């Protein structure tokens, strides 16, 4: 009368493979879940925040999460094919956003933003995508391609190098200050949805991200070139034998990631008043990687889900969890919370929320 899962649990508890590490990790897991539960319960029980406030936190989180999701796609696509963390991807995102801000300001001065807002924003997106794609391809050509077939860590070192090189190049070129994107006049209102007020700009960010991701999904799932991409990510050797030009597919992957990252840069600039800066890519890059892992690396819908989850958690978490635990100035720890999420995902669920735990075929 035992179900398969009960026997599996019993087997786990048979103390055979259970080392001291498992015990500590188990305690850690219980502690984390417990802390989140207690914090959330306390906050909600205290009734400190209104529904509308929660709503605005969630919508901010969704907007931020859409940006993460767009960046995460670059990580997911590249990791799916080359099994490497493209550490410089955050800088690809930055370079598009940073280079385009000058163009954006110029278009505003020309009055285009007033007279033709949609086309202007589209032009920004295209410009940023062009810059980011070129940077992504350049990095691939210079820092990754010669290392093809080397160990992951060697490529990671090169990627860290590329990341710093790009950051400080941007700093030397454009300076170290923050520069803001111009306000988009048509998107300054708020949408009223029952008790919730959602800034139009945040809704627009989500819509833009969804459209771009939909396009990518269509490209990967429905087109011939997408089939080639999937084949290469399944098994590069076999794909090569089938006559697929794997090098071209790799470049395409970097280009796609770059395009989305560039678009993410503009989207990010649109709703973040403090503007862009040479360092803006590094940590969002790390967080987007978290989102990619969270959603299951290699999966396009997974990146969307992971990005949104991370964004919302990062936005809601300080008030919901940390406040309830009695931690002062919880909002300062927003980033710390995001990194904790990163670390815990890597510890407990490196295969992502949707991934099945598969025993790796070794030996």
């Amino acid at each position, binding site marked *: 009368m035992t179900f398969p899962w009960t026997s599996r649990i019993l087997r786990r508890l048979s103390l055979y493979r259970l*080392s001291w*590490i498992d015990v*500590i*990790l188990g305690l*850690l897991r219980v502690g984390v879940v417990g802390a989140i539960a207690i914090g959330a319960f306390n906050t909600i029980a205290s009734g400190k925040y209104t529904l509308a406030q929660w709503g605005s936190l969630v919508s901010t989180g969704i907007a931020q999460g859409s940006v993460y999701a767009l960046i995460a796609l670059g990580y997911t696509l590249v990791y799916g094919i080359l099994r*490497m*963390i493209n550490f410089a991807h955050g800088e690809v995102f930055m370079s598009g956003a940073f280079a385009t801000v*000058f163009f954006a300001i110029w278009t505003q001065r020309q009055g285009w933003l007033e007279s033709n807002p949609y086309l202007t924003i589209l032009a920004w997106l295209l410009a940023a995508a062009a810059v980011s794609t070129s940077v992504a391809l350049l990095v691939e050509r*210079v*820092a990754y391609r*010669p*290392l093809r077939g*080397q*160990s*992951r*860590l*060697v*490529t*990671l*070192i*090169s990627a*860290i*190098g*590329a*990341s*710093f*090189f*790009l*950051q*400080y*190049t941007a*700093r*030397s*070129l*454009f*300076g170290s200050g923050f520069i803001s994107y111009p306000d988009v006049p048509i998107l300054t209102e708020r949408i009223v949805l029952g008790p919730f007020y959602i800034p139009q700009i945040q809704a627009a960010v989500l819509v833009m991200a969804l459209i771009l991701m939909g396009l990518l999904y269509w490209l990967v799932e429905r087109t011939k070139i997408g089939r080639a991409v999937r084949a290469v990510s399944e098994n590069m050797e076999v794909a090569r034998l089938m006559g697929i030009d794997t090098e071209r597919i790799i470049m395409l992957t970097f280009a796609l990631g770059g395009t989305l990252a560039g678009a993410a840069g503009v989207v990010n600039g649109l709703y973040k008043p403090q503007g862009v800066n040479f360092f803006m890519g590094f*940590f969002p890059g*790390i967080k987007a*990687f978290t989102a990619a*892992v969270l959603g299951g690396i290699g999966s396009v819908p997974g990146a969307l889900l992971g990005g949104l989850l991370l964004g919302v958690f990062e936005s809601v978490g300080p008030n919901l969890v940390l406040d309830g635990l009695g*931690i*002062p*100035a919880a909002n*300062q*720890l927003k*980033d*710390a919370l995001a*990194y*904790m999420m*990163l*670390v815990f995902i*890597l*510890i407990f669920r*490196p295969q992502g929320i949707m991934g099945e735990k598969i025993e790796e075929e*070794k*030996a």
Partner: protein
Amino acid sequence: MDRYRRFLAICSITAFALVYMMFTGMVETFGARDIVADVIDLGRILIYLSPFVAGYWVGRTPLARWQAGIGAGLVTTAPAALLTLIMERVSMRDIFINASPSLVDFLALGIQPLGAGMLVFWALGGLASGAGLGFSLLPRWVRKAIIVGLAILATMALMSDLVGQILRQITGGRPDRILFSANALRIGPAIAVFGATVALTIFLPALKRQTETRVLALLPTEFMQSGYAAKGLGLIVLLALPWTLGVFLSEVLANVGLFMLMALGLNIAVGLAGLFDLGYVTNFAVGAYLVGILTSTGPQGVGHFNFWMILPVSIVAAMFTGFMLALPVVRMRGDYLAIATLGFGEIIRLLALSDWFVPLIGGAQGVLFIPKPSIAEFSFQTPQQLYYIILAACVVVLFVSQRLDISRTGRQWRAIREDEQVANAMGIDVTWVKTLAFTLSAASGGLAGAIFASKLGTIFPHSFQLLISINVLCIIIIGGMASIPGIALGSLLLVGVPELLREFSEYRYLFYGLLLILMTLYRPQGLLPVKIQRHDRDADSTSRPPVPKLAPDPSRAPTTT
């Protein structure tokens, strides 16, 4: 057709590099530094290096002809010249902060009108690439001698502070005034230095062979071979260094030593055990904050203990955090481990920065008034005195890591670095061995942090950025993983040189990034890689047959030539 594509590829790379150096401001910033007084500055060297390289490169292709050589320089410098002409009419400073009129002036060599200046610039580019082509046609030994000569010349000029200081200390007079005029070499000495180095490079090999045999014949061979002689000599030099260098350079040296200490510690995880730890700064922070809080006489101070009492405490605390943070990550794959440790480092920094712990560690205000280490009445105040503490710490960490490296533990680390699964199947408890590497690495991080806090007197969360971890990692990778001489060289190059060249500090991390990429591409084993194969030297040395030591090692033969 293919040859012309090659030609264009070369030219576009060098042209890109030239424009890059213009707009990142390197040309101007480096131009402020003369190499040979009133003759040439570093900025001009950078500018004309691009066409020179283009010419040289073309010289190594089947296109090697004078027309192609000079043409390469003209093509390389053309975009820069055109951009400069545009820059004069349309200001680009709103976008590119370095696109200033003074840059235009610099490129035009001050010639008016600008068109004429650009023509001169363009022509000089052609000349430089012609020189590059000519250079590529020289025999190899001549090229080598010239390169060494120029490199020594440039190093001497750039390190003029260091060279001048040493000369002053040795002679007691001001012989540096003969060599240098305000940081740059004077023309006469420059020619002399260049000539001497070229001559030496050419004749040294033969000379060296003769003297080496003669000098070695005078020394007892066994003593020389045991390595004690070199070690002893090295130690004497290290002990005497701060007194020949003076206060400012000792400060630089102390910083180099501190980073070397951290690198030696991180090397246990990264170099010996192959664990890519990007959160090393965490341990550094733990050590620093513990010393800060427990010895400070300021508002955050608790207990006002003596530095030497807290030092072991902070090491143990760092070991404990290292151990605790290692537990969840040791099972991860290499690249995930790197990201997770990076995450830990940031979490700790953000926590230190937050208001949550302000009562304890002062938040963004940091911990102030940390006293210098002292023994009874004597206090380690000056950089020279502190240097000895750092040196001693380095020796301890070096001893521990070397000792473990040649023993069973080191072998286990090497095994998991090579193939974790097989190591596990050999009976190695992989989890424990990795945790040990993390913990020991953390201990030396804590040690470095403790010394850092006491040396600086104040600590802020800002001092514990990710950049520190990256910096230390760069030292190991560029010097050579697991290689002690490599780490020493890496610390000198990546910490010492930037401290001496403060005016270029803007480009420090840009060059780090570039170096990391170049190293992985062209010299992944590092500048001074580990050469010798170690085996277990724990064994009583007398019981070991002397054969392997004396016999030429066949595996080393190809690498030493």
